[in-house]
């Protein structure tokens, strides 16, 4: 826990305390206890350990030569790298599995739906169609997939996987009928571009210029 106003973790306090003086000092300890009374016990324990580590004489032990100790330390480092790599992979996998909405991913980055649509040079209506997989994934230009991926910091393969799922209902809509709602048919990307009323002429021209590349 860190960085609530006026509340700090023991780690932060001990880091700052160890920097406050070159040598352990009872006066500085008293100052810090007055400042952080919630850590009184820990500050005293740390100070005594600091004193002991400086004053106690060396005892013979299982001391290896310097190089052997260094190699031992490097093996520890290697273990940590491997452990961290495994954790990163697990985290990546979990974050991939968690992607449930492109618009939500954009909102996590602080964008409104309008802003997200603007970043990928599309209208909100087409972004919503993409979001709900109402556009046939095979007709979507790879440039757009890459652009979405860069925008929401996802690998293009994740975007393709998302867009390739079956169409879904628009999120947040309410249906009163007891019958299951009929989900709209998918349309081709370039048909959607041609028929969209919100795109500017420049946007439409740009996207339609990619049409031949997908055929």
């Amino acid at each position: 826990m860190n960085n609530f106003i006026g509340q700090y973790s023991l780690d932060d306090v001990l880091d700052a305390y160890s920097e406050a003086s070159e040598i352990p000092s009872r006066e500085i300890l008293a100052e810090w206890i007055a400042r952080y009374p919630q850590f009184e016990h820990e500050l005293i324990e740390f100070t005594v350990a600091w004193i002991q580590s400086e004053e106690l004489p060396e005892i013979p032990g299982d001391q290896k030569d310097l190089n052997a100790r260094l190699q031992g330390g490097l093996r520890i480092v290697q273990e940590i790298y491997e452990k961290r790599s495994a954790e990163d992979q697990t985290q990546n996998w979990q974050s991939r599995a968690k992607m449930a909405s492109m618009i939500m991913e954009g909102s996590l980055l602080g964008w409104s739906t309008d802003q997200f649509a603007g970043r990928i040079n599309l209208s909100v209506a087409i972004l919503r169609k993409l979001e709900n997989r109402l556009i046939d994934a095979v007709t979507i230009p790879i440039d757009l997939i890459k652009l979405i991926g860069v925008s929401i910091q996802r690998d293009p393969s994740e975007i393709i996987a998302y867009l390739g799922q079956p169409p879904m209902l628009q999120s947040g809509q309410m249906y009163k009928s007891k019958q299951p709602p009929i989900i709209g048919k998918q349309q081709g990307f370039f048909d959607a571009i041609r028929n969209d009323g919100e795109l500017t002429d420049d946007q439409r021209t740009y996207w339609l210029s990619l049409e031949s590349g997908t055929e």
Partner: protein
Amino acid sequence: MSTKPPNVTPVSVEPLTRRNTSGKVYKRSSAVEVQISAALSLSDEELVSRASIREETANGYLQEESLVYLIRTSYQRKNNFLCNKLSEILLTRCQEQVAFRVRAIEQKDDAFNDVVRVLFEKILAPDNSGDFLQVRFRFALKRISISIFHQYYRDQIEERENLRPSSFQSLDGQENEKDDWDQVHVAIDSDLPVEDSFSSVELESLKREALQILKEPIRTAFILHHIKGWQIESNNPKEITVSGYLETTPRTIRNWLQQAEKELRKWRGDHHE
């Protein structure tokens, strides 16, 4: 092993995000920022060569704070060659400081390895918990080393305590039982305060010898009182005292210190005969 970074465009140095106890975001020194920026444009071999410079005043020297950033970056870029080389260089630089801190530990190699473990877990932490290492590395390492020392020393005392024959263990009880007796003789004690029993010169010369032969907790009481000047007791409840820290009565502390003197004098006598 790559010889040139694949992306040669200038890479900005990622800012720190953790806040210090004053509420301000940690900030690297400008020297460290400059070192990192320059290092990011070097090839792996050039960077390793520069990181190997040991002379702090030499041109191109990289501080430990910079090495921490570069190890993080090379790890994130999956550059194993660079990551391993820089880690080795950083460990070599830390070795002396850590070895000093754990020298009173019997299992000093294990303690050393634990310091390394905590250090590198912080360096590679995905969050900002290692930011302080890029600001004040030496102090951060000192902090980690002392915390590990504390764990090991506490365990060491417990183990020794468990190994002591029961006849020795009962001595502690006898010490506490002496409290009643000491209360009767409080006037005698106050006539001869423990702190006046040694001259400063004598104390200094005896210090190391005494610490070798004294057992805990007498040893810590001796260090805190005679070397660090902590009071045995105080009327001020906020004053940090030896008896307060060791959670025992001032009478017991005085007994311990007198016992220490006795052991020391005997030891000196034995060695001067």
